[in-house]
């Protein structure tokens, strides 16, 4: 939404000492003041007439797969890293880490999201589901993936299974085209797409039988 960056100087030359991902501050090794402050204990300063401003290590509680899970995170910790590094929920995988590949897909309040571009702190009070909570029985999506060999190395699979589950919850009767489009937010490198599509259609059928 309103995404602005009001500091002077503007981004451009001022920021280009940080080459992408190199993690390197070429010009200076000193962290910015807020970064240092954030490393102190948790702070919550009240802005006049505004919401609380949070920084440092914050205790948060997330609703994951029907359980309340608590841990400490910084505001910058993504939902994905919080699940994987702090809560031992390692089903969602970190692959591109930039919201392109879908391996980190989780369901928040019924909708799939990329957990690598979601901040954990913003997920408090929302219902988070990962594939570890899915039914593994004969009418479940994981079963269909298994039977149709919709996985090889399996590292993209959690994302596909999650995207498929959420798609079928919203559209229990997808056409082949709808199923393809519904799973277009996920990338597989081994090349399991044929099995994935078969599994999605089979899972839709199996879910109907159950209903």
């Amino acid at each position: 939404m309103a995404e602005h960056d009001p500091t002077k100087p503007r981004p451009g030359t001022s920021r280009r000492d940080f080459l992408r991902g190199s993690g390197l501050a070429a010009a200076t090794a000193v962290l910015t003041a807020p970064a240092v402050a954030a490393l102190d204990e948790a702070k919550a300063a009240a802005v006049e007439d505004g919401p609380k401003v949070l920084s440092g290590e914050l205790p948060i509680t997330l609703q994951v797969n029907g359980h309340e899970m608590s841990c400490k995170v910084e505001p910058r910790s993504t939902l994905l890293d919080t699940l994987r590094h702090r809560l031992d929920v390692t089903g969602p995988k970190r692959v591109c880490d930039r919201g392109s590949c879908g391996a980190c897909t989780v369901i928040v309040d019924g909708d799939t999201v990329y957990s690598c571009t979601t901040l954990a702190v913003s997920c408090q009070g929302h219902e988070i589901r990962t594939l570890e909570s899915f039914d593994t029985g004969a009418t479940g999506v994981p079963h269909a993936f298994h039977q149709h060999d919709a996985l090889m190395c399996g590292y993209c699979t959690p994302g596909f299974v999650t995207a498929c589950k959420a798609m079928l919850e919203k559209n229990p009767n997808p056409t082949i085209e709808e199923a393809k489009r519904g799973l277009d937010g996920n990338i597989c490198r081994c090349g399991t797409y044929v099995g994935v599509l078969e599994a999605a259609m089979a899972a839709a059928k199996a879910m109907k039988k159950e209903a």
Partner: protein
Amino acid sequence: MPSWPEKPRLIGKSIPRIDGLAKASGKIKYPSDMRPEGTLFGVMLYSPHPHAKVTSIDTAAAEKMPGVKGVVVIAKAGATLRYHGDDIAGVAAETEEQARDAVRAIKVDYEILPHVVTEEDAVKPDAPKIVPSGNARKGRAQTTGDPEAAFKEADAVVEAEYSAPVITHVCLEPHGLTARWDRDDAITAWASTQAVGATAGELAGRFSIPVTNVTVLTEVMGGGFGSKFGADVWGLTAAELSKKAGGRPVKMFLDRIQEHLAGGNRPSAAGKVKIAGKKDGTVTAVVATTSGTGGARGGSNFPFPYVYAIKNVSREHTEIFVNGGGARAMRAPGHPQGCLIMEAAMDDLADKLGIDPLEMRLKNLNDGDKVVDANGKPTISRAGIYREQVPIGAKLIGWENRKPRGQNGKGPIKRGYGMALHQWGGGGTAVNKVTCTISPDGSVELKTATQDIGTGARTILAIIAAEILGLEVKDVISNIGNSTFPPGQGSGGSTTSPSMAPPAFNAVSKARDEFLARVGKAINEEPADLTLQDGKLDVKGKAVMSWKDACRKLGMMGVSVTEGFAEGLASGGVAGCQFADVTVDIETGVVKLNKIVAVQDSGLILDMLTWRSQVYGGVIGGLNYGLFEERVMDPGSGLMLNPDMELYKLAGLSDIPEIVVHAHDTPEMRARGVIGVGEPPTISTAAAIGNAVTNAVGVRVNKFPMSPMNVLNALNAASNKEGKA
């Protein structure tokens, strides 16, 4: 000599992989999921420059950062950094966020050196040298026959240039491992690797500890494609950081950017080709000057000419070095490149001769090329295999609908067909061992230090055991991915199945024989009268007790047998052909795949389901190469511009056409024993697509990938030429 059962109950059937549900439910732990007690997070600092010398490096500030438990410098003062992404240092901290902050607090001074990142720039006379001996290493021209004379007598000669860019492996699980010092001479590592043994060996070598004290664990792993052999710089750095931190585990996995920059790539390939033939379709001569870059590393060579028997040949390859991440073996190293250049030239010549490129291919097969049978004897004609496969593929794609180049109608939407042939070696090796243990409680375990990179290695071992013991696949525990187990094959070169199936067969067969001997003694029956089927023990063909009850007759001691390779069960050397049906919109240059057909032999297929998955996967890897993938380097800054999964393009589900996989599963092929299938089906897909696009649009699109840019540029170049003529 041992042989596979003639009428197998399980072998060759479609059997879901035994770890499939654990993977599909998110419950199995990958190496990158492991977070043993006390784990620290490791982050690498890597070069932001394509070419530089480190003049000084100061880690004092980083070491004082909150949570930091160790810093290791790899590129000390004086070290040369040769590419964007080259390793400089590693940090371990309590949280990953802290480690990332600390890496940014390492102060490095560089002497920036001039760089060169494109093949074109690298060979300019004033180009900065990446390798002391120069950026171009010209190979010796290899000539057979008399190409020049053949050109003079030819009915048609085609001269053209073809090229494909560098692509990267993009393993979904990044390279890396979690290392923990268990005591001062022992390490446990959870590694995402294709070779647990190699990784253990490198860790042991670096720290001078006995390799038997290093345990590398890879229960499952998220893809390798040839790029994950060994511990790597970052793996050794993790172990060193763990040592600094008093043995606490250090988890070090690359981020996606460094994965692209440093985790390996397939070298580029370019070829200037002159090819000549006779009206009857005989290819009489080919002369090629080829080149490619594997970055700051060799490895760009590739087989050429490819597949066909051509009498008069001259070929010269030049390795080019640039400031780019080094190549690593990538699924069928060299073959996709050789294939796409050769097969483009074949099609262009057929077009000029006015003959069907399918017929021309069959006419020029190499009848002297023999592949081995299960006894290791070269008795089987590869040309013969092609002659069986090509008509099958042609029928499945509808080759009869193909029109000659440029005759695809007046509208902007053009349909085209293309094909290509490929081959691969592979085969098994004799040094591996499998232990089969049958326990008194009825459990059966196979143990070996190989790993499953997603091909289904774990499952085929269980199938073999279940077949021989008359059990179901689920009754067998396939215990792999541990370097301390009996030696197992590294997963590469399509060698895993042919290397591991024979020792599994032998170990289980001998375990069964010993089992029957002991059980026979316990129940006073002749072992020769005993057989195992349907989970039961039979005496003279009649079931007398369940498998479990029979196992109880072992008393307190189970049966455990370790066995190795034997001739007669595996071989190597395959053919294969692929066909593509495409639609190209010549007003946008957008290529849509309608259908791809893959016909593939691979000896005795152990599990049809996972075998088919590998062929689908190979085709999809090939279609990515044909349509989407490209590492883009910026000449000015020397940086890779697309180290992501967005502008580094990979197919999604909507990009996948109908794919028809035909297993060339004949009695003759089955008799050859087990052959791997990891690489062959990825070789010819891009070549077939390139030929189909060219057939559709009427002009050769000579640069891969078949992007709108490359398609439109080829069309524009052709119409400009026409305009001038």
